[in-house]
């Protein structure tokens, strides 16, 4: 029997399909529909029967991996935000099975915070966006009244209680005095900035990203 170098944390980070593959590769027969908790338990039991020798090299396997579809989930509750432009943030999230199988959940929502400081306890304002049970990504609009944003993932249970699940890191939103088009359109630019093309740039920016103004 092959040795395994793994622990519960590592196994829990794998998707269900990855766990099944790992188990079958180690000769563990997995009945269809078996809960992943039991698969993890089986793998850990196998490890206990065959103590880990972390100094050993990888052993040879005759099983050649086949091409697989990318997993739908990595079975972890997290939310990540990526800046697309000064007005829009792309957010994606995932759920651990303990969340996605929770029948007390009524709906999920995102809470989009605007913050002035890097200390994220000082949210100047926020708004909520309800998302679907099967949604895993969204583009959120940054309202433009701060320098940073953070997006929290919540659910509301059937009693109306809001439960926090995860939050993103702080996102620094590009900010320039020139983004306030209406207040800055009469602003006198230095000749060198005019020569550099600032006026045309501002017009294009307003045309392409007017939601960020």
């Amino acid at each position, binding site marked *: 029997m*092959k*040795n*395994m*170098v*793994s622990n519960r944390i590592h*196994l829990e980070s*794998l998707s269900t399909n*990855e766990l099944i*593959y*790992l188990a079958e*590769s*180690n000769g563990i027969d997995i009945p269809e529909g078996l809960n992943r908790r039991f698969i993890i338990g089986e793998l850990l039991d196998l490890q206990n029967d065959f103590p*880990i020798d972390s100094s*050993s*090299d*990888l*052993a*040879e*396997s*005759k*099983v*050649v*991996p086949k*091409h*697989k*579809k*990318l997993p739908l989930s*990595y079975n972890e509750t997290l939310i*990540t935000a*990526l*800046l*697309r*432009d*000064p007005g829009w943030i*792309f957010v*994606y999230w*995932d759920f651990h099975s303990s969340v996605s199988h929770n029948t007390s959940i009524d709906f999920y929502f995102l809470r989009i915070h605007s913050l002035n400081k890097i200390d994220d306890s000082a949210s100047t304002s926020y708004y909520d966006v309800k998302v679907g049970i099967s949604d*895993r*990504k969204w583009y959120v609009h940054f309202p433009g009244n701060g320098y940073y944003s953070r997006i929290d993932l919540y659910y509301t249970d059937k009693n109306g209680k809001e439960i926090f699940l995860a939050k993103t*890191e702080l996102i*620094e939103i*590009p*900010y*320039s*005095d*020139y*983004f306030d088009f209406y207040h800055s359109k009469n602003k006198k630019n*230095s*000749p*060198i*900035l005019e*020569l*550099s*093309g*600032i006026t*045309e*740039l501002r017009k294009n*920016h307003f045309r*392409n*990203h007017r939601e960020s103004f």
Partner: protein
Amino acid sequence: MTDKSLIFVLDAQHPFISSVDCVGSIEENKFFDALTYTYLPLLRSCSNLEAEGIAFKFAVVFSPVLCEMFNNPYLQLRYVEHLDKSIAYGQEELIRCAHESELCALIEKHIDFLTTIRLEYVEIYSHNILAKFDYFANHGFIEILATTATPAFLPMYVDIPESISAQIEIGLTSFRNYFTTFPDGFWLPAMGYAPGIEQHIKDYGFKYTFIDAHSMLFATPSSGIFTASATSNGLTFFSRDKNACLEILDSETGFYTHDGYLDVDRDIGFELDHSCLEPLFDSALGRRNTGFRYWSRKENSQSNRTPYNPLQAKKLVHEHATDFLKNRITILEKASKLLEDTPVHSVCAFPIQLLGGSWFEGVSWFESVLRYASSNESISLSLPKLVCPQSFVNAQEQLPIVKPLHSSWFNSGYSEEVLNSTNDWMYPYIRKTLVRMVDLASRFPDDTGLKERSLNMAVREVLLAQSLDWFLSRNNIEDAENARQKFEEHVNAFTVVFESLGSNFISTEWLTTTEKKHIIFNDINYRVFRQKQ
């Protein structure tokens, strides 16, 4: 010598192609076309200028992926075969077009062109074109900049700092494998900048980098684009002169769109019957450019096309080169006056494949600009490292301090081209893969043997998956499926290694096959992904 400088920066990138499973593919053909119409003609231009005693100057950045492909012996051999097939096909084209004297003249010209290219590649450069670029760098004609290992859009990974460090470190190691100069400058793929990236660049000893105009102009305060600025950590920033680049690149008004230039899209590869094209390529693998193109860009009906006139195109090249320089001189003279005779520069950075690719005459235009500029007293060509060398030491004390904005050189100015509904699904996978790679480097700090080999394989796959070619290709229907497959292949390959390390066994058959498919970065060290103390 004037204090008004023109700095060209040519960005040389190409999507990675496997020498094993891309034989005869469209992707391989595009790579060969880049050699034929861009890199070899550019080297010839440089050699011509050197022979004439002209002190030309420009900067160029070669993606490490591209360097590896240039150096791949299988691709080198197949390129020569490709040229031989094209030259032989030219004779068949002469027979097919025997009744059209104008086309025959163009075909003969093209055969001569290909024959010269083959001679240069085989006899003069011995298949190693990078050595010649290195020669020009060592003789002060060009400056070669370093860049990331694969063209990753770094703003998407600023919160995974190990991934950025790994890209820079492997890129630098690759640079040292191919070039003997030391890179002072670092190129950000697609000029993708986000606050925080400057610290990584500085940590590896680079002195300057480049950002697009709006990143500098929207920063507060801003001193414009004609002089360098620095961030508080001492990294110098050059701003691209967007207006200058638009004169060349704009899809509606750029020089290359002129009627008199060759229409590079009207290629017989898309027009002739499959049976006629058999000697050139297997049409089951898809139609592609053959290089046999006979029509100008002038809009006509299919039955009434304007044949390409090389002499007229040559006149246009001269006209456009002269116009471009005149415009730069006018702008720089104004800038110099406004800044009280401070040395000023205009940075023209653009993808190298415009020259010879989208714009067949592009290399000739570039050579003309370099030639005319060198004899013009109102403007001089320069290299980034020569523009303000004293300021590189303690740049934050000598240059205006700036906090550039998150930016890119895409049309949107930000990240929309690499983050939209066609490609946003890729980010959960690539970011998870990166986090896992950092974890692996931490869990296996000193491993050797098969584990080390597997871990190095994992690094290759994650770097290749980050390539922004896959994200950009999703915007194009024809390339989207290929991009999806390549991305999934790299993520899956990484995942196989990840799972194998978790279970402590691996298929060496799979490992060997995958290594042969992705022959790149042979001296890679997975420990570059370790968390820095």
